């Protein structure tokens, strides 16, 4: 029983780490540009498929290095061409636009790579379980968690100590003032968008190694990321981090006792948080309400 519980908690933490990576990107874009990026799951899938396509040439490590920036470049192009004209308009429009993009992404990945799930080969030494008793802790899972920790740390360092990061955070609080101080807000939004999409691409590559690839996998990861943001509190990246881990573990633990509710428990958690603390766990009062 302990082993089963441990197995599911670990699973929950790993899934939660994915939600975190995905939700942090969404959160960055939402906080600065007021855009709910419905296509985020689509970018994740594209990142995974790009990795799949270049793995035969560059190997797994090369793909891990190259696929996320390529996804970010695609994101940058889409932001410039389609989303930029919508800043300052009702958020409804960017929501609808990215919603349509999500359709296009899903359909095009199916068109290009086929509807069948594709396996992604990971290096053999990562696929081994680390001990026979805790068979579920494979090297790859540890590696994934390590990657998530490293990238989240790097993101927070970027936001806290670099000029770009400080501007992003300032822009989240008051974009008008930041613009008045002479910061190129268009550029800031583009770079911020690219960082968010980079994270989506990275989660795509990592997820592909664990779960394989399917055109619909992005849509499945999108909703938990939304919930992670709402539970953690809109406007707070630390909150998003906490929210993602929380719902991951909650659904992992529920999977032990009541498997069919493992998805529903996230929504229950969200309802409880909204009842008791409408702004979310770490959300600031007055932000985006």
């Amino acid at each position: 029983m302990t082993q089963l519980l441990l197995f599911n908690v670990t699973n929950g933490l790993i899934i939660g780490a994915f939600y975190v990576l995905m939700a942090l990107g969404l959160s960055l874009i939402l906080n600065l540009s007021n855009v709910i990026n419905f296509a985020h799951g689509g970018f994740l899938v594209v990142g995974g498929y790009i990795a799949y396509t270049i793995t035969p040439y560059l190997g797994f490590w090369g793909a891990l290095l190259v696929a996320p920036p390529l996804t970010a470049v695609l994101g940058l192009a889409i932001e410039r061409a389609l989303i930029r004209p919508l800043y300052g308009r009702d958020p409804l429009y960017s929501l609808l636009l990215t919603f349509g993009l999500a359709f296009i992404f899903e359909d095009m990945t199916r068109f290009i790579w086929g509807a069948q799930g594709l396996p992604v080969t990971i290096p053999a030494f990562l696929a081994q379980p680390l001990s026979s008793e805790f068979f579920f802790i494979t090297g790859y899972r540890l590696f994934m968690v390590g990657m998530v920790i490293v990238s989240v740390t790097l993101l927070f360092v970027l936001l806290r100590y670099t000029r770009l990061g400080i501007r992003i955070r300032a822009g989240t609080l008051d974009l008008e003032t930041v613009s008045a101080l002479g910061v190129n807000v268009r550029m800031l939004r583009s770079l911020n968008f690219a960082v968010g999409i980079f994270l989506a691409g990275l989660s795509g590559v990592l997820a592909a190694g664990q779960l394989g690839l399917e055109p619909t996998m992005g849509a499945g990861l999108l909703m938990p990321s939304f919930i992670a943001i709402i539970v953690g509190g809109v406007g707070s990246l630390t909150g998003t981090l906490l929210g993602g881990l929380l719902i991951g573990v909650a659904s992992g633990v529920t999977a032990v006792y009541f498997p069919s509710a493992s998805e529903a428990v996230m929504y229950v958690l969200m309802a409880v948080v909204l009842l008791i603390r409408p702004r979310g766990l770490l959300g600031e009062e007055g932000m985006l309400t």
Partner: protein
Amino acid sequence: MTGGEGARKLIALGAIWAALLLAPYWMPPLGGYTALGTRVLVLGLAAMSVNFLLGFTGVLSFGHAAYFGLGAYGAGLALKFLAPSTPLSLICGMLVGGIAGAILGALIVRRRGVYFAMVTIAFGQVFYYIAFQWSSVTGGDDGLRGFSRRPLDFGAFSVDILSNAESFYYFVLFCFALAAAAMGFVLRSPFGRTMIAIRENERRARFLGIPVERHIWIAFTLSCFFIGFAGALYALLNNFADPKGLHYSQSGDFVIMAVMGGMRSFWGPLLGAAVFVILQDYLSSITVNWMSFIGLLFVFVVLFFPRGLLGAIRRKVQA
């Protein structure tokens, strides 16, 4: 309002109703079929319900498919387990959608803007998972089957709406007219005017002493009753309730119908629904990549027709 504008409105209204009443006669020669017209009416009513909130209160709900789907399941379960009565199933569907909306609405209304949209999406998905997982009652992924609409029994005579597509169309048109009249009545009432005041300037409305949250909650609940009713009609149309009808992508379809037709006008969403349904029907018959084309339609509408078809026409007329 000038006399000319009033007359123009009356003519437009007459034209809309004439087109709807005569649809079974003019649609088939143009390559349509009656059931397609029924679908437009039902989904149009759903889009109008979404627009009741989106266009007239200015609140972005992106999770209305949940209440639509709940209406469908409510009607289906009532027909299957309660009593084989078409009117009863419609009432059940409407109540299920509306009551769920009233309860969740209370949790949601304090949020605004994008946050409101996110919370409505996420809560909408709850019902999708319930319908998906609770297969002993809902049929799970396969959907709810094993029920069909019943003939309308008026004692002296009965109307066969099951096998006769045209009588069913007129039955749905009758229901549509009732719902549209109710919606129009609310929008013309002082309450409806207050909704528009909140849309135009929420802060000012608040300063005037209007309890904004309560008004939004009532508007949200009403629109859930309307869309639950539409969902019940949808279940009767298909003799089937599908978990996809609860999914957020269905909500997206409703919102794009409203935006494409024209959010600021009462009839816009119906026009949007007509264009959307016909386009989807046509595209899925000619290409497997219809999803991409629907996606492109979203992008196209947002970038080039943000005011919708009626909004664009109105601008032309006024210019």
